[in-house]
């Protein structure tokens, strides 16, 4: 029988099935961070249960950690509740165990979805779970990867399994070559603009087509990362040479004879020719332009050469009210040219766009230029300690600093503003992160989601610009 990649990943992890199709899925990799795990460990302790398989756990502190003053150590975490969460994770990992733990201040600490792949802790064919919705990122390695809640974190810790039901399947086929200055981020934003934030609800998405094949692993991770913003819990890409070359030599990847055996198995991780999907969406990469969101949901997105939409032209009443409310929150008038929107802050970072390739792309735009004087703060927050050091070896930190950017320590930072990095009420930000929800980057803050190149160009211009035309 012909099978999709999703079928293969699903079937190879079913331990037990209930009559109604609910399955007990085996979990290979469990990523843990400080925000969604404390209640799970506590419940485990209260019930007198152990962690089923500690060598499946890879943990780090990322959401709360500061991006400055690391020399102050743990005291650099000013907020006592943040500090308590970071310490609680330390305690929990110390008493329960893990395969690897990159605590706050560790040279390999970083955003959980950056450190997994870069250490080879994410391998093709795995099921990967984490108490974080952007776990979909790891699907770029032909993994079945999705975010879970804290009760499920506890369930996985205690049983190595997750109760789940199979989703429907969606193929997103992206063919053709992207124009210069158009990136993986623009592909996924364009997709969300097309199908909406609930368009993928109930589906597992596979990304295929020549445009996806042409992406680096970093680009594929960006696309899979934002799958959750399209409503689907997981997105995936088949294994090819790019996947295998990326993994070769990574610390937790198999070596020697085991590597060859693994590669042979990984090669089968693709949809069979003629496999059937419940829904197919096609995008023409040649038609995708740099995208900028204008509202408070990732589906509220247009191309840089378009205008802020006019709610009066929307027929559906709920949608019209939603648009009007979003425009009010964003402080934007209908029909404003996207290129006329001025920004106060710039954030280059997050598990969507903080990998080395993202930083290289942003630095290429910034090189030899200055951040506009009207921009109050331009931040670069590398996704991990390893990304940071790699960037420094390449001199990217100098490029950013000379342009007027701040070069920070790794973490989630202003993606969700749980630490000190945030927008003040009314401030407008060009951000490479994944969510433009109300208050996401700080109460009253206004977020526009863009690619690293577009964020860098906006920093220099002080407003959004079409990176295809300028500085290329």
């Amino acid at each position, binding site marked *: 029988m012909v099978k999709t990649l999703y079928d293969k990943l699903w079937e190879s992890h079913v331990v*037990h099935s209930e009559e*109604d199709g*609910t399955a*007990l899925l*085996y979990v*290979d990799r469990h990523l843990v961070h400080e*925000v*969604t795990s*404390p*209640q799970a460990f506590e419940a485990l302790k209260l019930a007198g249960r152990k962690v089923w*398989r500690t*060598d499946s756990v890879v943990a780090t502190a990322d959401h709360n950690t500061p991006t400055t003053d690391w020399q102050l150590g743990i005291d650099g975490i000013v907020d006592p*509740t*943040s500090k*308590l*969460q970071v310490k609680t994770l330390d305690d929990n990992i110390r008493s329960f165990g893990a*395969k690897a733990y990159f605590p706050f201040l560790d040279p390999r600490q970083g955003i959980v979805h950056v450190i997994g792949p870069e250490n080879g802790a994410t391998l093709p*064919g795995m099921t990967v779970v984490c108490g*974080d*919705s952007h*776990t979909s990122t790891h699907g770029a390695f032909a993994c079945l990867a*999705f*975010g879970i*809640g*804290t*009760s*499920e974190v*506890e*369930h996985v810790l*205690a*049983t*190595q*399994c997750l*109760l789940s*039901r199979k989703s429907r399947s969606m193929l997103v086929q992206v063919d053709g070559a992207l124009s210069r200055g158009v990136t993986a981020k623009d592909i996924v934003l364009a997709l969300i603009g097309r199908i909406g*934030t*609930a368009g993928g*609800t109930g589906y597992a998405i596979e990304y295929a087509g020549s445009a996806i094949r042409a992406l680096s692993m970093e680009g594929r991770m960006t696309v899979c990362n934002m799958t959750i913003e399209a*409503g*689907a*819990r997981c997105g995936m890409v088949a294994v090819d040479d790019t996947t295998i070359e990326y993994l070769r030599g990574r610390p937790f990847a*198999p070596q020697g004879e*085991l590597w060859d055996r*693994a590669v042979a*198995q990984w090669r089968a991780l693709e949809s069979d020719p003629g496999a059937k999907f419940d829904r197919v969406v096609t995008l023409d990469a040649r038609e995708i332009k740099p995208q900028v969101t204008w509202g408070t*949901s990732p589906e509220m997105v247009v191309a840089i050469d378009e205008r802020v939409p006019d709610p009066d032209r929307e027929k559906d009443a*709920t*949608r019209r*009210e*939603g648009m009007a*409310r979003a425009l009010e929150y964003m402080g934007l008038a209908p029909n404003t040219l996207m290129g006329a929107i001025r920004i106060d802050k710039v954030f280059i970072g997050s598990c969507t766009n903080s990998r080395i390739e993202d930083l290289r792309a942003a630095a290429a735009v910034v090189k030899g230029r200055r951040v506009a004087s009207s921009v109050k703060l331009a931040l670069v927050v590398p996704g991990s300690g390893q990304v940071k050091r790699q960037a420094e070896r390449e001199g990217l930190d100098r490029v950013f600093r000379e342009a007027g950017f701040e070069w920070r320590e790794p973490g989630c930072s202003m993606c*969700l503003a*749980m630490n000190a990095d945030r927008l003040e*009420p009314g401030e407008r930000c060009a951000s490479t992160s994944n*969510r433009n*929800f*109300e*208050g*996401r980057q700080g*109460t009253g803050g206004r977020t526009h989601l863009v690619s690293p190149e577009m964020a860098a160009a906006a920093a220099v211009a002080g407003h959004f610009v079409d990176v295809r035309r300028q500085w290329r």
Partner: protein
Amino acid sequence: MEKFTVHTGLVAPLDRANVDTDAIIPKQFLKSIKRSGFGPNLFDAWRYRDAGVPGMDNAKRPLNPDFVLNQARFRGATILLARTNFGCGSSREHAPWALLDFGFRAVIAPSFGEIFFNNAFKNGLLPIVLAEGEVDALFHDVAAFPGFRLSIDLDRQTVAAADGAKIMRFEIDPFRKYCLLTGLDEIGLTLRHADEIRAFEARRRAEQPWLFG
């Protein structure tokens, strides 16, 4: 987990699509390492006029009188009526915890964010999917009839107006229904399959040893 069998309660309408988990419980409140106490900060940015930070005395904060849950007629509501894609966004289980802590036992919407949907079940908060037209009609009824109540019968899978005038059926996975009706501990249930898990694991270790150790 608290059982869910039959529940009758006052309905509060939240007439917005795509209500995300950041709106349900803003991130500054996720720093708690507990499961309880999130209710006062449910929909914090919409409910209060000032910016909420942990540790404030919420009773003293200025309320936004326009926000629906602050209106006297919806005080004590236990069923939330919502629009499409309710609970989209992050995996934070703090969202259902906050809704439950506030007093809600069920949320009715045309669709839900998937992780939120899952998380709700794990905590005894029943998310009910009804057709868009049915939800529309309910929004209408809530506006038209002060004190509008609904009765939810999980076993029969029905939502009914308290006067019995209107009965709607909803779908639910049998396994989820069973867990909710009995309030069973899912981990305990899963551990009944411990031998199967061990056997699966042994096979996997033999075939793909690089996944272990």
